[in-house]
């Protein structure tokens, strides 16, 4: 009802408001242009420096060499496989970390004494640099995808648990009181209050998780893999083929960015649907 009203009001702007809108539009245009400009500038500068010999393109590569390298990878039919493998590992560990993390957080929320007992362990495990677990993971999980996914999980799981749990525990006391006055049991408090009010938190945790899972996957691939973008990068480094390293890194950038935006989009849709914030 309200929205329809606003739409019909649209054409009747005062000149001041029109000027304000124009100014805002201009500002947004400048921001977009600057963003694109920086990218173009860096690429051009890189290319020019490499062509004129100011930097050694053997160790710095160059945009044109990266494009050539990309072309070769595509032609060889290898690229799709490598991207697919890395994506698969990231997505699997992302879903595992999110579901397991939320589940554990629910359990810890439900049982206060379990939470108190386990708290120091989770904090210590969260503080531990997970790369230190590399040898253990290789020995236990082998040198294949399970090891990589375990590494990604190790990195993202504990932070998910901690973030989600603090959201659960942060539910307003007065809202809990409301549920109690209505005679709600624990399950009802969880499903009707704690979970819905924490959806934004959980989705925020997803955003962090996307990044964490990429870190974990690439780190895992560095350690053990035979394929994937992390493998391409480490392999390129070993044979001193910087074109391959740079190309794979850029592809990784694009994929990680896309995945982040996908989660951000989900967040926007969900909070709109549920009328949160």
């Amino acid at each position, binding site marked *: 009802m309200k929205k329809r009203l606003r739409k019909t009001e649209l054409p009747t702007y005062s000149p001041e408001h029109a000027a304000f809108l124009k100014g805002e539009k201009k500002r947004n245009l400048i921001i977009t242009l600057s963003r694109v400009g920086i990218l173009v500038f860096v690429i051009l500068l890189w290319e020019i420096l490499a062509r004129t010999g100011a930097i050694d393109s053997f160790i710095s590569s160059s945009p044109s060499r990266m494009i050539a390298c990309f072309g070769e990878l595509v032609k060889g039919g290898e690229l799709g496989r490598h991207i697919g493998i890395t994506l698969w590992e990231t997505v699997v560990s992302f879903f595992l970390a999110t579901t397991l993390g939320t589940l554990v957080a629910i359990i810890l929320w439900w049982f206060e004494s379990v939470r108190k007992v386990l708290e120091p362990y989770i904090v210590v495990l969260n503080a531990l640099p997970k790369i230190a677990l590399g040898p253990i993971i290789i020995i236990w999980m082998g040198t294949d995808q399970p090891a990589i996914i375990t590494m990604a999980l190790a990195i993202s799981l504990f932070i998910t648990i901690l973030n989600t749990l603090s959201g659960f525990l942060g539910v307003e006391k*007065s809202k809990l009181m409301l549920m109690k*006055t209505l*005679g709600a049991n624990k399950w009802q408090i969880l499903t009707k209050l704690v979970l*819905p*009010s924490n959806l934004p938190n959980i989705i925020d945790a997803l955003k962090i998780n996307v990044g964490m899972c990429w870190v974990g996957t690439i780190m895992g691939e560095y350690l053990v893999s035979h394929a994937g973008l992390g493998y391409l990068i480490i392999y390129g480094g070993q044979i001193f083929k910087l074109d391959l390293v740079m190309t794979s890194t850029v592809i990784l950038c694009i994929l990680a960015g896309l995945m982040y935006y996908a989660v951000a989009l989900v967040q926007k849709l969900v909070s709109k649907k549920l009328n949160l914030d």
Partner: protein
Amino acid sequence: MNTILQMRNVSLTYHTLKNETQAVKDLSFEGYEGELLGIVGPSGCGKTTILSLMSGILSPTRGEVLIYGEKANCQSDLTGYMLQRDELLSWRTILNNVLLGLEIKKIKTPEKIEYARKLLEKYNLGDFRDFYPSQLSGGMKQRVALIRTLVLQPKLLLLDEPFSALDFQTRLNVVEDVYSILKSEGKSAVFVTHDISEAISMCDRVIVLTKRPCCVKTEIDLSPLKQYSPLKRRELPVFSGYFDSIWRSLQDTKEKENEKEITQN
């Protein structure tokens, strides 16, 4: 008049690791059917505790709390609790907020939903049924909160300073609304507040409590004002007289406390 609420020598002690606090000490009073009973006391005297005892969320350390002769318990449908703030859930529509209690008690039948719709309709919220709380004003939200309580058809309403979060203008109007809703639904209610004028404008009888641990200080009968609405009452010449006597007895409790502290020191 039927006695529907009995507080019999109720005491309650809170325990924390550092100390124990006696919030209520040997408190006894009664409430009657169809009556709007006000409870006034200095802030921090344990007014909310008393309502929690009546609703059965807390159990007394000693003594007993009887509602319609039954021991107060939080699963019973006899009492309906209305909190200081509306506490509407932002992700639920107004109608779904009103239905929350029915869902929790697993009595969300078509008839009850129809009753909820009718109540919203009756109190001018029908058009806002599918809106979200953020789209409503503070006063409207407070009315929704009252309807959420009424939908459960409690016999005794427990109102915990339900207007304190509203600005003064809104508050006067909402007091008027709530008063007429309570009267037209024929509800008995216990209304806790630290605002003396609000208590006089709404209630049929006011109990003044002492400082913590609280017990009954005085009781003031407001039945002569029964025929007037809250706003009208504020205009009556006797209003200031009532105000004065409640204020005096509140002051009294404070002064005595001070004296005690001085002699102790």
